């Protein structure tokens, strides 16, 4: 059993740890999309670029927070580990979408990620006391939900477009 | 002893049959009654030439409320004509609606649901009551008996309440629409109608006592304004004017329409053919209408379709044809002659109102040798409504 896996089995963790994972989550995704963008056909590039931009925004939020002095104390607080934490951290691992994935493959991957993130942030918001961090998780959960919904709409319109 | 005028001064007839009236002679006077005059029923005028108290010549003038309905209808679609026809007769507008609707239905080949026939008949009898109530007030008023008009106006108003709840309007009902009628009777209508009918009957009792059993009225109305029976055909006389002369002319019986074949009644007649008899025939005809309404409310179906399916009325075309639909209104034979040419508009509509002959040719004949004081009563006794003359 790897160290990471053992870590995941712990029922308690600190907010700091969680934040680190989350920051990593957003960063790897951003880099993945940024690297993918030039590889895909130009007609799909908008999709990948938009995804990269979205992840960048979230990454910025986390890094800004980590730098705030007023939150240092709170970050040490232990919180209940969210139920779906493993699904979330799984998503840090990059998928193999091949050299030239099409729109459907990109969308399916992005959807899976957004869904995991949404659930993760939602649970975290529930297990933190009211305050800046609680608000942040609420905000993120909401962001990811919105993003996921948008992606689902895009997916439906793109993949199911010709159904009529 | 009756008044005997001195006719030695009277004008001679010229070769063409007209009277040789020299106004400059000072023997004759031109006297106008109307168009605004309490003794005139509506907007019309009578140009009288009198010699002393006696009328030597009378001419009816109309045109004061000519709106050209017949012509206006030629540029309206068949359904658009429906709201304007009622305006051709204010006190009893429903015959216009019925005759027009029936003419359109006949030429368009539409079958109207049975319930609609009953409701149409009901409305026509309600209208007849109102028309007679107005007449009675007017006839009494022509002799200075203002109170009768006050009573009949009140009970007419009660009937207008019934019209209002049934049709949605008091005067211009716009309810008998080509294809049927607009709706069934409202809930509880029959009971309220019965109360109204009883009120009218009670008032008619008063009217009979005060107006008909009245020495003054009899002195002024009996033996005055007699229409000789042989004039009937020549002057196109119909309705109570004919029935008071002993001829039972009543379209409801002669050529029954709507549901009249299912109703039990006899045409009301008189025999003396004077103002009094005509008033009395109308009073009794009013009582007949009350009876007919009661029969209708008992016999009519309580539910069912009120209208037949129409084509899209916005571009409803009717094949070429012509027809004439008549009904017995309070004044006589009312009828619509409709000509269609296959387009979406009537080619020609001609409205036959009984007043057309009654208040012109007939009146001009009857008024000769009448006393000036009887002219108003005579005209009212013919029961004329000017708008149906000039349509």
């Amino acid at each position, binding site marked *: 059993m790897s160290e990471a896996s053992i870590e995941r089995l712990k029922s308690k963790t600190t907010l700091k740890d969680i934040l680190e994972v989350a920051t990593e989550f957003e960063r790897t995704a951003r880099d993945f999309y940024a690297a993918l963008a030039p590889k895909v056909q130009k007609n799909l590039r908008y999709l990948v670029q938009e995804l990269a931009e979205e992840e960048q925004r979230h990454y910025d939020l986390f890094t800004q927070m980590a730098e705030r002095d007023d939150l240092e104390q709170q970050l040490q607080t232990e919180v209940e580990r969210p139920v779906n934490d493993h699904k979330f951290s799984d998503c840090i691992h990059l998928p193999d979408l091949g050299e030239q994935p099409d729109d459907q493959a990109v969308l399916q991957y992005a959807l899976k990620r957004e869904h995991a993130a949404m659930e993760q942030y939602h649970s975290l918001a529930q297990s933190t006391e009211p305050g800046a961090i609680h608000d942040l998780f609420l905000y993120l959960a909401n962001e990811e939900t919105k993003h996921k919904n948008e992606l689902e709409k895009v997916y439906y319109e793109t993949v199911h477009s010709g159904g009529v | 002893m009756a008044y005997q005028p001195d006719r030695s001064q009277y004008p001679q007839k010229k070769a063409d*049959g007209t009277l040789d009236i020299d106004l400059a002679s000072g023997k004759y006077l031109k006297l106008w009654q109307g168009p605004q005059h309490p003794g005139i029923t509506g907007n019309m005028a009578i140009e009288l030439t009198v010699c002393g108290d006696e009328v030597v010549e009378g001419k009816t003038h*109309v*045109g004061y409320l*000519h709106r*050209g309905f*017949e*012509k*206006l209808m*030629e*540029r309206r679609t068949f359904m658009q004509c429906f709201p304007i026809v009622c305006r051709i007769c204010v006190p009893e507008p429903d015959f216009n609606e019925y005759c027009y609707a029936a003419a359109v239905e*006949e030429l368009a080949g539409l079958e109207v649901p049975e319930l609609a026939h009953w409701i149409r008949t009901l409305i026509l009898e309600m209208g007849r009551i109102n028309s007679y109530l107005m007449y009675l007030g007017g006839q009494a008023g022509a002799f200075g008996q203002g109170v009768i008009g006050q009573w009949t106006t009140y009970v007419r108003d009660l009937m207008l309440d019934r019209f209002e709840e049934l049709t949605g309007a008091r005067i211009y009902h716009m309810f008998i629409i080509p294809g049927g009628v607009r709706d069934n009777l409202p809930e509880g209508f029959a009971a309220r109608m019965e109360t109204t009918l009883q009120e009218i009957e009670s008032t008619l009792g008063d009217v009979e006592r005060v107006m008909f059993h009245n020495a003054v009225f009899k002195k002024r109305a009996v033996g005055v304004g007699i229409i000789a029976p042989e004039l009937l*055909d*020549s*002057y*196109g006389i*119909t309705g109570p004017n004919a029935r008071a002369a002993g001829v039972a*002319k009543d379209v409801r019986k*002669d*050529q029954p329409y709507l549901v009249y074949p299912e109703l039990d009644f006899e045409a009301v007649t008189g025999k003396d053919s004077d103002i009094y008899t005509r008033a009395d025939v109308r009073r009794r005809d009013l009582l007949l209408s009350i009876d007919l309404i009661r029969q209708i409310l008992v016999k009519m179906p309580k539910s069912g379709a009120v209208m037949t399916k129409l084509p899209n009325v916005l571009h409803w075309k009717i094949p070429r*044809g*012509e*027809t*004439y639909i*008549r009904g017995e209104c309070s004044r006589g*034979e009312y*009828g619509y*002659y409709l*000509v269609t040419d296959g387009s979406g508009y009537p*080619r*020609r509509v*001609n409205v*036959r109102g009984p007043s*057309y*002959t009654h208040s*012109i*040719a*007939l009146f001009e*004949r009857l008024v000769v040798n009448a006393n000036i004081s009887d002219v108003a009563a005579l005209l009212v006794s013919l029961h004329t409504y000017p708008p149906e003359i*000039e349509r």
Partner: protein
Amino acid sequence: MVMQALYDTLKPRFLLGEFTKQRDDLAFITVEAVRLHALLRHLRDQEGFTHLVLLTAVDWLEDGQFQLTYLLNNRAKRQDVGLRVLIARDNATMESIHDLWAAAATYQRELREMFGIDFPDSPRLHEDFILEGWQDIPPYRRDFDTLKYAQENYRDRPGRETRDPAQHMKQQLYGED
């Protein structure tokens, strides 16, 4: 059936034209102008059609003709017959029937005024009837345009305007497209 029988009897004598059965109790018969008077007299005196219901005209502008309709009623037999007489629209003239029915003079006076049809010898034919001082063409003729007349002689209250739904939608939704 009865009407048809009557028509068949009278047809040769009065050279009747088209027969149109409208209802069991109403038929229209076309008759030549010159035969009308005699036919009317016959119908009135011999056939029981004693009641002149109405006399009016229809303007068949396209055909250059007026149709005069004489509607008679036989009360005893519950029958109506409409006699159609087609006369030339230009200088329209028709024989008067006031000698048969006194009331006919009024109808003829109106027809003279409203349609410009002459009925020589009809009493007071040229006296104004409904239209006192009318200068225009007889107004019930089809070529008299009531809307035009109204627009020329009356003024609309200002402030009225309207839009066509389809045109408005084009302007709002897809413009020049």
